[in-house]
């Protein structure tokens, strides 16, 4: 694989117009990636779903070359109706459009930097891969006191020009003091068998609010990995909602550092999986100072041959007294062949804390089905009603009413 990586890397570098220095930095990341390769089940974080095996099985020979010099046609039919929004359109590894039409242009700065160092410690070869191959790194800077009027939707799409290719995206967001951003990631992949590697870096200033909704609903054969790093200052709030349903493989990883007092992080996730899908959510919440709070709720509904995994970790530093941490994961297994794995982890070094986690899994309750059938529903309807109720619980946690309705419509949940 390493020969192909090197030759693809050289091809990409030839086409893109970047300086020698930058190429050197990228080369460094490439070598780091070549040393460690794709993560496998020997690494604790990848124990349940082994990405190197999955890539081998689903894609086979992965291609790393991507021609960034040609622009792609924007397919407007995928845009979300009925919700006014700002857009970033990301097609085949290229950002084609950044549109903040609804906003005060003086309050948002967009810069395009190539040489972006990674400011936190990580042990993740996929971030090295991302850093080596990602095309342009955009940084979106929201100025002090500004709340975006409309949500920002990032459309992730690929068209039929591309297959069995590795696509990388990196975006940096800086939310200054007292600013607010609602961000929706919308996946509309029409092609098959690409490996998409997304890396977001969020920096939240004092009192800033970030709401990130990741919607992967439509069935496709792509493999995806998404990594969010969130740094939070005093009194900031981050809310992440993950709908994990469409791709063949999807792993969402969230690393959240609560660096400021009274900051809080909320992560809610839904897995709704069918035939042969394998999805995972991995979270690490680091409570580093006093009076911080985190809340996680993850629910899975698993169909035939599907597999979901949840690895959640709450870390509490010895300084972080009065921490409040909570994790709950629940799963319904619908078929004999479905599988649920969980590793809810607590690592605590302070004594005055309130941390708990819970995990439960099982099949649909036959008594509940019987009850509904005795009220005149048929078996299928009863099952659906119960599943919808189970998932609605998570969707109801979304704090933005407009987006909540949008997501309910997308999932097909009615109140």
């Amino acid at each position, binding site marked *: 694989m390493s020969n192909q990586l090197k030759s693809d890397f050289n091809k990409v570098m030839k086409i893109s117009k970047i300086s020698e220095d930058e190429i050197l930095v990228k080369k460094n990341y490439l070598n780091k990636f070549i040393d460690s390769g794709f993560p496998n089940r020997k690494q*604790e974080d990848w124990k349940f779903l082994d990405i190197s095996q999955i890539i081998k099985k689903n894609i086979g020979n992965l291609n790393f070359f991507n021609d960034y010099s040609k622009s792609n046609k924007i397919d407007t039919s995928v845009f979300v109706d009925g919700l006014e929004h700002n857009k970033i359109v990301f097609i085949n590894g290229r950002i084609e459009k950044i549109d903040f039409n609804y906003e005060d242009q003086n309050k948002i700065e967009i810069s395009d930097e190539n040489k972006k160092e990674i400011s936190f410690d990580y042990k993740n070869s996929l971030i090295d891969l991302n850093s080596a191959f990602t095309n342009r790194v955009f940084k979106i800077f929201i100025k002090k006191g500004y709340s975006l009027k409309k949500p920002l939707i990032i459309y992730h799409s690929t068209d039929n020009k591309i297959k069995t290719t590795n696509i990388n995206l990196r975006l940096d967001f800086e939310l200054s003091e007292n600013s607010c951003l609602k961000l929706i990631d919308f996946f509309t992949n029409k092609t098959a068998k690409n490996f998409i590697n997304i890396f977001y870096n969020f920096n939240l200033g004092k009192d800033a609010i970030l709401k990130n909704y990741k919607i992967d609903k439509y069935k496709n054969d792509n493999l995806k990995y998404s990594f969010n790093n969130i740094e939070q200052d005093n009194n900031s709030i981050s809310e992440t909602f993950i709908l994990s349903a469409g791709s063949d493989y999807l792993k969402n990883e969230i690393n959240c550092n609560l660096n400021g007092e009274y900051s809080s992080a909320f992560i809610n996730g839904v897995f709704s999986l069918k035939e042969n899908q394998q999805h995972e959510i991995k979270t690490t919440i680091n409570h580093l100072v006093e009076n911080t709070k985190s809340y996680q709720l993850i629910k899975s509904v698993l169909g035939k041959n599907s597999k979901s995994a949840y690895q959640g970790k709450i870390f509490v530093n*010895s*300084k972080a*007294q009065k921490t409040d941490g909570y994790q709950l994961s629940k*799963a319904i*297994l*619908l*078929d*004999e062949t*479905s*599988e*649920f*794995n*969980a*590793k*809810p*982890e*607590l*690592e*605590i*070094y*302070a*004594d*005055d*804390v*309130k*941390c*708990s*986690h*819970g*995990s*439960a*899994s*099982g*099949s649909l309750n036959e008594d509940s089905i019987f009850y509904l059938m005795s009220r005149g529903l048929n078996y299928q309807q009863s099952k659906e009603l119960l599943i919808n109720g189970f998932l609605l619980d998570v969707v109801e946690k979304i704090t933005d009413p407009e987006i909540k309705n949008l997501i309910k419509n997308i999932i097909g949940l009615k109140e």
Partner: protein
Amino acid sequence: MDTREKDIEKLKDYKYGFTTDIENIKAPKGLNEDVIKFISNIKKEPEWMLNFRLKAYERLKLLKEPNWQKPKYPKIDYQDLYYYSAPKSMKDKPKSLDELDPKLLETYKKLGIPLQEQARLNGIAVDAVFDSVSVATTFKGELTKHGIIFCSMSEAIQKYPELVKKYLGTVIPVTDHFFATLNSAVFTDGSFVYIPEGVKCPMELSTYFRINASETGQFERTLIIADKGSYVSYLEGCTAPMRDENQLHAANVELIALDDAEIKYSTVQNWYPGDENGKGGIYNFVTKRGLCKGKNSKISWTQVETGSAITWKYPSCILKGDNSIGEFYSIAITNNHQKADTGTKMIHLGKNTKSKIISKGISAGFSDMTYRGLVDINFNAKNASNYTQCDSLLMGNRCGAHTVPYIKNKNFDSSIAHEATTSKISEEQLHYCQQRGLSPEESVSLIVNGFCKEVLQQLPMEFAVEAQKLVGISLEGSVG
């Protein structure tokens, strides 16, 4: 200082920290084929046993020491250890207790296990293991009447080779992990229990382990077989003298329960934990595994872990027979610089299998405590269920408490529930107790005992009293 304070002062010290001056026979230092042959030879073992050991050793050479555990320790030099140490007087095994070296008896008296008296008074059959060999087993007559075999492992290999051959290594095979395989290669002694079909063992069986010699590893191997419809309750206690160096204890315990049989295994582990600064102490790397082989069988582990510098063990149940039950009750207390990474594995293979895990962890001082557990429900384990509860209590902000449960559910008929909490002793609770006239230390002891009650209840009477005291002692000096 009033008398009570003096008592506490006395208890603070590790009271089992004395050494006994007894001449020892040791195998040459180091780990190699000759040492294994030496051990096998001195124990007059048959050839198949030697082959078992050598097979394990061959495999050991290919294995690497695991290092994924939370408490890290300096590398152990396996060539710098004695693998066999026995009191000299044991060379020609005494026929009865009266022939035992008086110094040995003295030691056990200090430990609170006067073999002779205890045998008569409490009605508990005791097997005592001193360094590497089993020195005495009491109450033989009574047990033989019921057809129960309770003897040292070496005796069993001589007298009941068929039974040993049939079951040894069936739960922990020679192809297991590093420490288990090391044990298979060099184990020296341990207890052997066989309960025949339909027999309810009329008394508690008990073993006391003691490491006396320095630079010695203790590698005992225990095998308990409960035949169809039988019942046995087995107790295990451990102590070691105070030494500056770290000593390794890598035992293997295998339990096998056939149809309708039940085994209850309780441990009160109080190995020397090292001094206040974390110097010395025992590395307790033990492999304990039970196999519910038959239908409706049950294995229950209860452990109170207060000693050892590092405890690293996961007593497990393999629930193979349909309707079998596995239980795990644990209290683990770490203070000063002690570290523990302990928990259980419940592997559900049979239909309608049930398991229950109750784990209570208490950490104080600079210690670090991890609960690590696995619940694995296999594809075929229809209608299996598991309930897990692990609670941690922290005292001070220099210690850590961690929970790492692994949950794997591959069967849609099964249900798993897991709960965990971490908290501290609340000011209100302390205030309430002190208002009623208890000292801060007593209050903590009372609250902690309440916290542990669910597990302490599972212990046999005699042990429960000892364990309660231990819980109190282990936490001395951690308040304030």
